């Protein structure tokens, strides 16, 4: 039995390589790309340590966790490459306008504020990079929106 091991190993490796070499991605490239991107996000952490965030943001995190997990994994937004206020605004509104989302405008705003605050702390490097690529006007608007959220919740 023992003597067959290298042969089995070789056979399995040969089969694996053969299959990997022959199988090709199908033509649904965009769908596959989107799926791969989402899969990558969803493999990351599904929770955030919000213990150092202001109480109001911690409360908003609860709303975010409860509402968003009804349709998709929380790891998807948590690890996504969205960081700028406008990106979160569009994403949250897109979700909340889906029929049956159960997200009203009050909850939607809380989720938005949490995501903007969290991005300015946990994804600061990504946010700074995005701000650096914006035009001067867009950058000023985005920074004002981040500041608005911080002013509302910090030291309260």
């Amino acid at each position, binding site marked *: 039995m023992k003597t067959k091991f290298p042969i089995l190993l070789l056979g399995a*490796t040969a089969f694996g*390589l*053969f299959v990997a*070499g022959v199988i090709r991605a199908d033509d649904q490239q965009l769908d596959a790309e989107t799926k791969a991107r989402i899969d990558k996000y969803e493999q990351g952490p599904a929770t955030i340590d919000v213990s150092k965030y202001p109480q109001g943001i911690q409360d908003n995190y609860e709303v975010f966790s409860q509402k968003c997990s009804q349709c998709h994994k929380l790891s998807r937004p948590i690890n996504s490459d969205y960081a700028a206020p406008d990106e979160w605004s569009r994403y949250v509104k897109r979700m909340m306008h*889906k*029929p*049956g989302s159960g997200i009203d*405008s009050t909850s939607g705003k809380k989720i938005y504020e949490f995501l903007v605050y969290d991005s300015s702390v946990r994804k600061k490097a990504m946010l700074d990079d995005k701000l650096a690529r914006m035009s001067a006007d867009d950058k000023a608007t985005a920074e004002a929106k981040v500041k608005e959220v911080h002013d509302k919740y910090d030291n309260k």
Partner: protein
Amino acid sequence: MSDELICCSKHDSEPTASRKPVPVWLFVLTLVLLFLGAVYFDHYSGWFDKQVYAPYASAEELAFYQPKSGAASVAAHGRAVYETVCGLCHSNDGLGKPNQAPPLAGSEWVSKDVTSLARVPLAGLNGPIQVAGHEWNLAMAPMGAGLSDADLAAVLSYIRTSWGNNSGAVTADEMKAARAAISGNAPSAEALAKMTPVERGRAVFQKYGCYQCHGQDGKGGVSNANAKTAEQVPSLIYVADGYTKAELIAFVSRGERNIPRLNPAGPEPPHFMPKWGPIISTNELSDLADFLFSLKPKGENLGF
């Protein structure tokens, strides 16, 4: 000889079989050869046909894409159009899909007069309808509205002469006449040129039958059983909130084949967003996005 054997068997130990480990270089060489073999297959296989290589997988597939002449050319073109535009719902074998699209094989609709048949891809069709003795209560968008007369003639000819159907081919001239008879209310090219992008976008919304699922005013509400979106096709009046123009055009072009289910164990929702990219032109998509953005109710502000 016999003396020697007697001599040695008395003094030496009994010979035993032993085994050497497989050398590492043999593994490495095998892996390299297998890798090169796989790369060769990937590029040149065609299952051992040197005329066939990526992206084609077989000699048959390559032959299918070769230019043909006469009736064979029309049939091959019709099949290609069918598999791009119709096959996703009606299935490439023409047998349809339960709760999604009726069969075309053996359908009495296929053998109708040419104008009546052309009306389905050009203007869409809402149920309930009877097909081969069964009732189908679904909505089909005018998936053929963006096809040329030649493409439409090729695909309808393919449908009318495949899977046991035997109703004869149709011509591009017949399609031109059918289109004129059906779209009497559609704006002329001159009228379109004078319109604003939003007005043209409204015409695109009509032309491609978006209203059949999303409602005449884009407010949605058309039933989509077991869809997670409250079993409805979504409203479009808030797309301005959720998308940039580029994102919206990309979404419409890409479509959404897999609609999340309300009950994961339940049936697939009958309606999904078709992949409009190959059907609606780039300019029309731009106008459509402008029209959809204009649907947002005035004065509404969510405060973020």
